[in-house]
């Protein structure tokens, strides 16, 4: 069981790292997801593969499972969930602003001409950045959720 877990963790870290090295932001997000799954599994495996019954008082005799790693992993999953959601929103805004998902453009670069043109066209929208203030059908208006 430990061997299987170790292999799975290795595969998750490997594929996660591979995806993170792409220029496509969506792939980077997916890679991060795989990496964090690998790390969570590693926490479970590091604490020992669970063998025994649930640690509830009066629910029977015998060896019980250590509940702490599960609590830790749950916390880590929740945090990862929140951060991934935020990252997806950021990626969405990235696409809406730059029109692509390329992460390689560094912040030191001046914004490409089309971005500047769009920012000028959008006027005061830069801070609020809400679709509400944007005319329907404008570029970067975002696809329909469905």
């Amino acid at each position, binding site marked *: 069981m430990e061997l299987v877990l170790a292999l799975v963790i290795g595969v998750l870290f490997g594929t996660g790292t591979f995806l*993170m090295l792409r220029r496509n932001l969506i792939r980077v997000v997916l890679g*991060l997801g795989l990496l964090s799954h690998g*790390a969570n599994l590693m926490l479970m495996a590091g604490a020992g593969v669970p063998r025994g019954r649930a640690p509830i008082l009066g629910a029977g005799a015998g060896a019980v499972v250590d509940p702490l790693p599960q609590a830790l992993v749950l916390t880590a999953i929740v945090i990862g969930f929140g*951060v991934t959601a*935020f*990252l997806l929103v950021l990626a969405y805004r990235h696409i809406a602003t730059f029109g692509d998902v390329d992460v390689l453009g560094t912040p030191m670069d001046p914004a490409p001409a089309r971005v500047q043109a769009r920012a000028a066209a959008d006027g005061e929208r830069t801070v609020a950045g809400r679709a509400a203030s944007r005319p329907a059908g404008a570029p970067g208006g975002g696809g329909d959720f469905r």
Partner: protein
Amino acid sequence: MSSPLVFLPVLLPLLGGIVLWLARRSLGVGRWGSLALAAVTLGVEVALLGLVRARGVQVMFAGGWVPPFGITLVVDLTSAIMLVVSGIVGLCVLGHAVQTLDPDRERHGFYALYQFLFMGINGAFVTGDIFNLFVFFEVMLIASYALVSLGSEPGQLRGGVHYLVTNLVSSTLFVAAVGTLYGLAGTLNLADLAVKVARAPDPAVFTIPAAVFIVVFGVKSALFPLYFWLPASYPAAPLPVTAVFAGMLTKVGVYAVLRVFSLVFTHDPGYLHAALLVVAGFTMLLGVLGAVGYDNWKRILSVHIVSQVGYMIMGIGFLSVAGLAAAIFFIVHQILVKTALFLIAGLAERATGAYDLGEMGGLAGRYPVMASLFMVAGLSLAGVPPLSGFFGKFLLIRAGLAQGEVAVVAVAIVVSFFTLYSMMKIWRYAFWGEEKPAGLRPVPAALYLPAAALVAFSVVLGLGGEALLVLSQQAAAQLLDGTAYVMAVLGAR
């Protein structure tokens, strides 16, 4: 000593942040409410420092669970000092933010996010177990992700993505290291870990998670070679955000190194702490060299953060009372002065409308107060006596020479000259020379207050550094010995 006061630096920003979030449409509530909250938090933190000095290490066991089970919060002298400094920075930067932020950002929850940021920072300072260190790191980072991208300007988006992805990878490694450590020791409580690592029959295995922790905290505190995300993301954010990030965020990473590598992983200093020294030397040198090429006030200062973090890590790498005390002194000095320099950059931006040195000039004649504030803060950063930076660096160098670490000390001295060069460059282009008359705007007197307060602290710490020095020596002794910490947490058994 169990005290409910221990949790207040975390609880107050949490509750206040929620209220500020609900009332985010009202600018009055946001501004005055958050200022009042920051002031109260600072008051609590000062009281806590007094309590720790008088009665020793303070602890709180959440839910009444006796350690090593449950969540433990511990405040020793180091934590208390860090809390007070974070309170000062929180209040001063907020004082700048309420006057300069655009109302749109304010209405999108800046003040609530700011409080959540400080909840995470303070939580990292008070937590007594390594998993909650991760949790509070994440609270801090999530708030900072939102603050960095609040406003969604193109530069911010790019910087935000870099910042987010890099820190997420390090968080993933954090979880992996925690898992390894739990598998080896069976506990994550720092005090319990200290005992277990010290008594382990084969302590060498703990070098593995310890090395991963160096990488993790290295990303968070922008150490060589993992600092590349910092110059990319910090300057993109609005100035108050950059100022508080520059002051506090990397220092939380440094604090984590300080805590973990003086309390828990002291079993193999020949490898771990020697590695820290090497990393520190490169961080100092490359950070300061990176700043030489820039002509933008905000960028120069941002890259300098990296260099200064190197000094702190150097002090920790010495692993002696003198080294740790110097590191603590230097961290306090650095947080205050670095934040002050950013706020002064904000003053100059208010006057000229730019951060580019090429668009400034002759500010000294028109804004003498701003010039003198920058002069004091810049010289303090470079380490000119009798300001706090001099004593910080002097203590570090003396601690290093006492242990014969000549190489890294030599790097530290050379780096100081380059730091002075960068400060002179800002001075030369921004304050001297031809006045660029195009649209110089008046700077309201109230905007000077936060920066002036921080600079005053630097002067006080220089002229009257004795008090802080004694305090940081006590804190360092407490850190290195560990008995008081462990007794306070595990003594109940």
